[in-house]
């Protein structure tokens, strides 16, 4: 660039700068207005209408009543004039009634004598004759908020989240007596279990996202939220050295695990609400066993410095408490959007602590004069993944 040509950016006044910035926006407005008003000469290209409907939560609030949330996922307005239940056209009301605008929703209420413990299928028929089907796998009254049920759900969350984490923490005194090498093994094991949890959280988030209307773009949303979470946490914790701040690291591990357990609770609560809560003793046992490893991971960074009992309880509450909260939310007020967001944040939090604990392991092995990719670390990592994987046999269905 020749030096005697002035840089226009530097010679312009502030107002002309704004003008330059706004010009494309104004032109965009004009183009949009033209398209809306005239169709832009594309009338012949107007395609066939595509109808998509997202069927959200189905509830059975009382005997003989089915309600369902429906979101219009299509590019245009659509109407649901008829409803079938179990292959029979059925009376229904919609609130609000009539056509559903794009991204709009309505609640459909059907006075249908559903049968306790049996499956039902509901099909919505559109103006164009498209069908959208949802099933009630096991019909049962949707849990209504009541004191006793609230308490029972809380108890489930307690067994599944808080109790195992607390039990796992009880290995702390034993861990303090371990050699540096053995402790490093435990830390590697923590990395392994966290990696397992990250994968599990990703899959759970995906599962919730599948039920979302298309415009939420489930997978990109999960990825972005997780990445943002990692970024924020790194920015917060990046300045500190995990060696000096073991308690901070433990809290971050507990937070990540807590969000994961929130997801677990959500799934359990939602399963209850959908009549699939065959959560027998065996399953509770499985969750307890599965989650006990989490307690080890949380306290592993703390072996050099005992932070005191109060901190342990707080850590346990952060890691295990959300399971209780999740069971309540999932059972009484399930929201797939929020659930997906929570799990995505959890995923980010877990990925961030994997990074942090990993660094800790790297420093420790260097201090012990061991190879980073040696048998000790690799063995610990594998043991962590294997523990989670095999104890999950009892809770996957």
């Amino acid at each position, binding site marked *: 660039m020749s030096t005697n040509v002035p840089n226009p950016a530097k010679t312009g006044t502030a107002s002309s700068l704004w003008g330059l910035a706004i010009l494309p926006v104004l032109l965009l407005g004009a183009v949009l207005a033209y398209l809306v008003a005239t169709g832009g000469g594309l009338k012949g290209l107007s395609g066939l209408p595509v109808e998509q409907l997202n069927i959200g939560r189905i509830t059975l609030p009382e005997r003989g009543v089915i309600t369902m949330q429906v979101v219009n996922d299509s590019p245009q307005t659509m109407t649901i004039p008829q409803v079938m239940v179990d292959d029979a056209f059925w009376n229904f009301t919609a609130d609000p009634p009539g056509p559903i605008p794009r991204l709009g929703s309505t609640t459909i209420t059907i006075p249908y004598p559903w049968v306790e413990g049996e499956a039902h299928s509901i099909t919505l028929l*559109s103006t164009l004759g498209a069908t959208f089907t949802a099933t009630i796998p096991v019909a049962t009254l949707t849990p209504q908020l009541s004191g006793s049920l609230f308490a029972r759900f809380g108890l489930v969350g307690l067994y599944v989240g808080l109790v195992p984490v607390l039990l796992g923490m009880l290995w702390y005194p034993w861990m303090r007596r371990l050699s540096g090498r053995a402790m490093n093994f435990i830390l590697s094991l923590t990395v392994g279990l966290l990696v397992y949890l990250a994968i599990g959280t990703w899959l759970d988030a995906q599962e919730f996202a599948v039920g979302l209307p298309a415009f939420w773009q489930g997978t990109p949303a999960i990825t972005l939220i997780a990445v943002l979470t990692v970024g924020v946490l790194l920015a917060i914790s990046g300045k500190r050295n995990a060696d000096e701040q073991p308690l901070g690291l433990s809290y971050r591990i507990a937070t990540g695990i807590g969000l994961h357990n929130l997801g677990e609770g959500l799934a359990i609560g939602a399963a209850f609400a959908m009549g699939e809560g065959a959560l027998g003793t065996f399953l509770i046992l499985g969750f307890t066993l599965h989650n006990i490893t989490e307690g080890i991971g949380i306290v592993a960074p703390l072996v050099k410095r005992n932070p005191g009992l109060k901190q342990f309880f707080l850590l346990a509450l952060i890691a295990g408490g959300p399971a209780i909260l999740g069971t309540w939310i999932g059972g009484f007020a399930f929201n797939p959007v929020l659930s997906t967001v929570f799990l995505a944040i959890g995923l980010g939090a877990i990925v961030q602590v994997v990074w942090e604990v990993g660094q800790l392991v790297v420093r420790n092995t260097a201090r012990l004069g061991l190879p980073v990719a040696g048998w000790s670390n690799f063995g610990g990592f594998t043991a962590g993944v294997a523990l989670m994987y095999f104890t999950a046999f009892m809770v996957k269905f």
Partner: protein
Amino acid sequence: MSRWLQSLLSRRDVLRAGAGSAAALVGAQAVGQVPPAAAMDHTKMPPPATSPKGHGEHGGNLLVGTVDHVRNGFDPMQLLTDWDGGKVSRLPNGQTLRDYTITAQEKEIEIAPGVFFPAWTYNGRVPGPTLRCTEGDRLRITFFNHTSHPHTIHFHGVHAAEMDGVPGAGPGEIQPGASFVYEFDAEPFGCHLYHCHATSLKRHIHKGMYGAFIVDPRGGRPPAREFMMLQNAFDTNFDGANEIYAVNTVGFEFARRPIPVKKGELIRLYLINILEFDLINGFHLHANFFNYYDTGTTLEPTSRIVDTITQGQGQRGILEFRYRFTGQFMFHPHISEFTELGWMGLFNVVESANYAAALKDAGLDAAWDRRATQGSTVKGQGA
């Protein structure tokens, strides 16, 4: 933890254009010419109904709202008695000649309140015109194809090969814009049908190209109140299975508007099954028994005193019965699934003295009554 998530959408990705804009118009109120017995009302939640309310409400099992028959251009109630004798003249040899004109047209029809179907039709209606003649009449059907697909008319009967209305016979498929004259003598007498036989057969039939073809025996049949009931169904999402079942196209129409008949009079049904995708259909009469004439080709019943018959695809027959009691009596196939998906109706049996009032209640007139009782094409047996 995976199965608790609901199964999601089954959907028809690509649909016919033209209804997209209509989507905003329907569903709220249909301007029918019928008494609003069950006008759509999304504002009040009805109590969970457990007892049938007599007026076609099978508990909560119903279609919400009413179909706009005026916009459709045909009314299932009128189709019951809508015999078409054609333009009658006499051939030099003394034979009766009946001239018909049938035009294939594409038309979007409302098959259930607020649900539109991209039909292929004969004369803009589904089913097409009910052709009625006497055994031995010469029929001349001029067929125009005003659609974008080849079509034919295939008559069930006895005729020359080139008149069979199938690909490869005579003119074969009648191309868009073309026409052809089908000509043959009506035989044998019976309850027959005609339909398009172009390929692909399933689609050409199920999209609406069919109609009743009734050939009266030379001596006629005993006087009776006669109705034509054509059992059809619609695969609205084109997945090879029907969503809506009916007689004369509109589901639950005769449940919403019971058919008025007189106690004690002979009732004769011309019952035709044009179902696609499902192998069988049937008919069950409540609180009554009937005589059945398989295919209508005999003057003596082929089954006596039965209350349920089964018809395969393309089968048909004539039913005769009388009611001993007044009241509303259901009829439907004894295939519960079809019953609950729209193929269910009622006869409203009244004393002769109350018949005029019953007609009026159903939105019908004396002309409808006359067509029902004088539909035969045999001299001295009505029109």
